[in-house]
């Protein structure tokens, strides 16, 4: 079962030795490029420089500059070119150096990629994957610390993936590359060095299947991407006080596996949602609204949201830390909900 496979603490059957989230992504691209000659990688400094975060390391050497294409700093332009190439049946895997720069390509992503199939009555597909790391925590300040899960999940026509583990990074990226729809693949800068088991060439992770990262009956914590690890360390702390937290990772926001989330909340009667993005019109608000709709009669307390502070990210380390969700904050919210002091 995919959820078991993806559990971070369990050795995956297929994965030989633990590899980093970064290397897991590289493996996924390499394997899919070997499997399908229509797959190519394009982006800024993905070739000779091997990627700003070295996720494309080795690909240029292995596949040459026809299939690993360095672009000028022209996000709107090369994303549009990728979309056109996808219309023609190629399978571009684009790297945007960070999610922050994807804003420049948003018109191409939202008005073209997301709409081609629909507005032309199903005549064309747009099998493109647009990878981009996001998140904060390294003092990159206001313009380099965005988490745009909310914006992308708002858009019908896109598929949106938020992998939290090396296993999912690889398995979901492979699925995304084989998918016939445009996929926005949101990586986390903070997870690139994270190690864990990964699957083999044929281990795909399906879209729309949440993963239960930890089982527990007192409170459900739904967490996205890097926040899964924040939630898990909160859960460890809570366990010491005998509070058993169920940590769930949706893994994909489009499609969304509401059923797995709701089933857990119906059991625990409480939920905390953790996101790295801003609180207003964010993903946590969306998941909360959906969970209320699905579990209203089972809820013993209002659903709590833990999001980044509603400010541009400050540079100063102490302020940045204060602006980001912490295990302590998550634990505090859980304690508040289960009514055992705290928060």
């Amino acid at each position, binding site marked *: 079962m995919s959820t078991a496979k993806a559990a971070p603490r369990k050795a995956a059957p297929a994965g030989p030795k633990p590899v980093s989230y970064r290397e897991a992504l590289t493996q996924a691209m390499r394997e899919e490029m070997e499997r399908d000659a229509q797959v190519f990688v394009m982006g800024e400094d993905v070739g000779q420089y091997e990627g700003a975060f070295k996720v494309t390391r080795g690909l240029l050497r292995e596949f040459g500059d026809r299939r690993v294409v360095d672009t000028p700093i022209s996000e*709107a*332009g090369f994303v549009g070119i990728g979309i056109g190439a996808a*219309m023609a049946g190629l399978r571009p895997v684009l790297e945007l150096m960070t999610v922050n720069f994807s804003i420049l390509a948003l018109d191409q992503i939202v008005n073209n990629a997301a709409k*081609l199939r629909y507005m*032309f*009555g199903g005549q064309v597909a747009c099998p493109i994957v647009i990878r981009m790391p996001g998140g904060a925590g390294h003092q990159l300040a206001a313009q380099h610390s965005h988490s745009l899960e909310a914006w992308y999940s708002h858009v019908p*026509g896109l598929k949106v993936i938020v992998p939290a583990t090396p296993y999912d990074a690889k398995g979901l990226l492979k699925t995304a590359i084989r998918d016939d729809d445009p996929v926005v693949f949101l990586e986390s800068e903070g997870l690139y060095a994270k190690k864990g088991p990964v699957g083999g060439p044929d281990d795909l992770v399906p879209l729309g*299947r949440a993963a239960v990262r930890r089982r527990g009956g007192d409170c459900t914590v739904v967490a996205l991407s890097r926040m899964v690890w924040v939630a898990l360390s909160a859960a460890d702390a809570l366990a010491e006080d005998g509070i058993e937290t169920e940590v769930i990772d949706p893994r994909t926001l489009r499609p969304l596996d509401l059923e797995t989330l709701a089933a857990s909340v119906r059991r625990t009667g409480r939920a905390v949602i953790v996101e790295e993005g801003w609180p207003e019109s964010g993903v946590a608000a969306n998941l909360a609204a959906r969970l209320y709709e699905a579990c209203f009669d089972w809820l013993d307390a209002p659903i709590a949201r833990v999001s980044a502070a509603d400010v541009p990210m400050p540079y100063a380390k102490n302020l940045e830390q204060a602006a980001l969700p912490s295990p302590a904050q998550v634990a505090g919210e859980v304690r508040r909900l289960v009514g055992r002091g705290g928060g």
Partner: protein
Amino acid sequence: MAKTRSPSARDAVTRPDAELMRGMFETMWLIRRFEERAAEEYMRGRIGGFLHLAIGEEAAVVGAITALRPTDPITSTYREHGQALARGSDPRAVMAELFGRRDGLCGGLGGSMHLMDKERHFYGGYGIVGGSIPLAVGLAFAIAYREEDSVALAMFGDGAVNQGVLAEVMNMAELWRLPVVFFVLNNQYGMGTAVERASAETDLFKRADAFDMPARQVDGMDVMAVHAAVTEAARLAREERQPSMIEAIAYRYRGHSMSDPDTTREGSEKERWQARDPLVTFERVLLGEGVVTREEADAVRAAAERAVEEAAGFAEESPEVPPEELARHLYADPWSDDPRGGAAMPPRKDGS
């Protein structure tokens, strides 16, 4: 049409491009009559949304598209009825799309601004000014990637030239030597804004200088001139992988769209350009060179009228789009029949 009816026509057969010229003449009239009828249907309320007519621009559209192979991919803007028809799309399906009916080119989901005929390698009309140009370069990228010998044609307006993304993709097209032709249909206005109020350099083809890319200007009211220019540009792209830019100077006789009162343009200016109506001037050429006779020219118009009449009838008869189409083409395999369900997957049966 009967080629033996008149001596002049018989001579014409000897002229190598006589067939081509007749075909272009027929297409130009089909487009003209089709758009005149579309305007009427819009007034009657059978067509909704925006309706942008290219009346006056037929020479530029037809000259460019007939210079390509039928398999060369094309992208255009929201002002693209002519492009679809010039590519051979069924006028009935085009009109049905404008009507928003089931038998439309895009099943009624796209409308006037979003025609597409994939089978004919017409990759669509788009509504975001400048937004479709990168797609054409992407189609050219795919051609190069697969080492095919097609050429992609990006058609856009003088206003689109000021969208930064054009500079971005022209640079990449030249840098990577992609087989693409950037075709600026300069009808001298972007909505109510004349080129000289929007572009510091009014010779728009000079934008190519910044990228060391060949470019030229051509009379967009002269179908043969446009055809010749695009033929050479296509050859450059096909044989030398050399992208280029062509600026065709034309004029639209109607307002920006049916909802544009068109009060900012001088009437005298319109008359000047009307005097050079590309259909009339081309007919003179054809008659002069004996490629068609007066009777044949009239027959071409009559045929266009019949085709348009038939198209309108067909569109009228075509059923409404079935409600279940609302979410059908959202994804390759829709997970939700109820689009109000948002991104939520349907409850699964597999028990996984």
